[in-house]
């Protein structure tokens, strides 16, 4: 018999979707397992051998909702490796860019994904049939965020104007000023949004989170700061491993990020607000007080309110940045001196939470290793806890209602599961 070997080397595909498995036994929750496909892990391999200058562009394609976050973490990490410091107007433009993404992403989540949950609609399309005005408000807000991202990013599909050291091209004062009317009306809508969200019916819940976010001495942190937690962590991004680890939780499970020692933590709007809320603008703080938002929010269902407050802040901050803008002399800062290779690490605040990047670079600037820890990988274990508690409180519900509640518990944290739509496959097993 003649035989030959055919080399195939084919990696089977998994589509970008998530699944949740809940096992109930004797009236208690035996096991909760949230499975998430992590595209960043594939990009880590894809980045190897590429030049350091390519990372912002490649990583921006990981997520269509938060390309700015991926670009920002990438450029900051590379700049750290090369010892480049970016200040002044370039730094402010980056912050403005991030404001755009926060507005865009929060508007999508608040109006098109989260609100239907509270009002009992299966999705935004059905909600739009009964209440087109609400959906239109969300779309208008999102469009304002998009306008900022397009102005600075250069293109709507994914931003191509960002580079290590700054931008390829910076806008004139007049160009930036053209955003003002859009942002002013966005600010009004954002304020209405807070009042609207405050009137939603919130299920009871109280979770004991360890919040983790960037913190900056002078501003509500977006691009820069130390990584801090509500239980005493304070490290720079380059010392991330001292406080956090990536743990394979079960054999058939994705890699999760946990605190050293294995406990879960939470990143995202709730964490930023709890740790840095005092740094919000006076207006954002007063609206928060007006609607009775507590200084630390431990009910995950109320995250919709916190995101709404952050939208008010991002609109205001964007308007402030327009006012102070004077175009920088150069659009980007070049690395100086000889580079001998090394490691660069950075974390920034993506709309859904801390996004960590680390790159090992050769002396010619080639990427030898890349590590990207997305917000959802960090929240995954904590979300499982939320689900467990929600189920424990609601065991009497039938499977359909329990399933819907679990979906809501997950969506509370704006997870990056196929853009957080209803792609989730959910299984409740009652023994």
């Amino acid at each position, binding site marked *: *018999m*003649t*035989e*030959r*070997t*055919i*080399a*195939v*080397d*084919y*990696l*089977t*595909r*998994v*589509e970008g*979707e998530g*699944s949740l498995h809940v096992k109930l036994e004797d009236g208690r929750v035996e096991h909760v397992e949230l*499975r998430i*496909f*992590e595209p960043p*892990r*594939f990009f*880590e*391999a894809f980045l190897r051998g590429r030049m350091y200058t390519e990372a912002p562009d490649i990583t921006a394609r990981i997520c269509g909702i938060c390309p700015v976050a991926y670009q920002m973490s990438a450029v900051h990490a590379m700049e750290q490796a090369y010892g480049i410091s970016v200040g002044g107007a370039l730094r402010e433009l980056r912050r403005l860019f991030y404001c755009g993404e926060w507005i865009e992403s929060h508007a999508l989540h608040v109006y098109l994904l989260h609100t239907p949950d509270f009002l009992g609609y299966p999705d935004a399309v059905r909600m739009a049939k009964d209440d087109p005005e609400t959906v239109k408000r969300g779309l208008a807000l999102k469009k304002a965020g998009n306008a900022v991202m397009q102005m600075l990013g250069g293109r709507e599909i994914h931003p191509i104007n960002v580079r290590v050291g700054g931008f390829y091209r910076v806008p004139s004062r007049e160009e930036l000023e053209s955003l003002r009317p859009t942002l002013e009306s966005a600010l009004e809508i954002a304020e209405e949004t807070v009042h609207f969200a405050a009137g939603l019916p919130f299920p009871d819940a109280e979770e004991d989170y360890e919040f983790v976010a960037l913190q900056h001495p002078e501003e509500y942190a977006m691009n820069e700061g130390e990584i801090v937690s509500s239980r005493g962590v304070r490290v720079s991004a380059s010392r991330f491993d001292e406080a956090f680890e*990536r743990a*394979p939780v079960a*054999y*058939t*499970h*994705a*890699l999760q990020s946990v605190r050293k020692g294995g406990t879960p933590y939470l990143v995202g709007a709730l964490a930023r607000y709890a740790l840095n809320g005092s740094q919000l603008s006076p207006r954002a703080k007063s609206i928060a007080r007006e609607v009775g938002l507590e200084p630390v929010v431990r009910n995950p269902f109320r995250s919709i309110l916190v995101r709404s407050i952050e939208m008010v802040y991002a609109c205001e901050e964007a308007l402030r940045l327009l006012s102070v803008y004077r175009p920088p002399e150069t659009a980007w800062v070049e690395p100086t001196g000889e580079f001998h290779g090394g490691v660069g690490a950075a974390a920034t605040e993506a709309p859904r939470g801390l996004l960590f990047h680390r790159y090992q670079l050769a002396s010619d600037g080639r990427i030898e290793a890349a590590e990207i820890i997305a917000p959802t990988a960090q929240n995954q274990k904590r979300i499982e806890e939320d689900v467990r508690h929600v189920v424990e409180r609601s065991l009497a519900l039938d499977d359909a209602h329990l399933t819907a509640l679990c979906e809501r518990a997950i969506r509370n944290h704006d997870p990056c599961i196929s853009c957080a739509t209803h792609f989730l*496959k959910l299984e409740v097993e009652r023994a």
Partner: protein
Amino acid sequence: MHEEAMLQDLRRKLVEVTAREAAPRVVRVRLWLGALSHVSEEQLRREWPRIVDGTPAESAALDLTTSRDFEDPRAQGLVLVSLDVEESGSTNER
């Protein structure tokens, strides 16, 4: 579910490769299973007959390597590494 999608994709690839190579019978299939794959080794062995049923690989031996490396970039995946096939025109019939 992820598992089912992966297994169906594996089956599709097996059929595609054997058709392209005009291989009437596959003797051995080598698979590499990542440490974080959504399908477990036991599950894969259990489902194997169903995956290959009705394909040229239905009587093939399964040669499965299970990785323990969580940092491998393909750790979430299942890789079809290679196939040993009988040459078409071979006189050795089943």
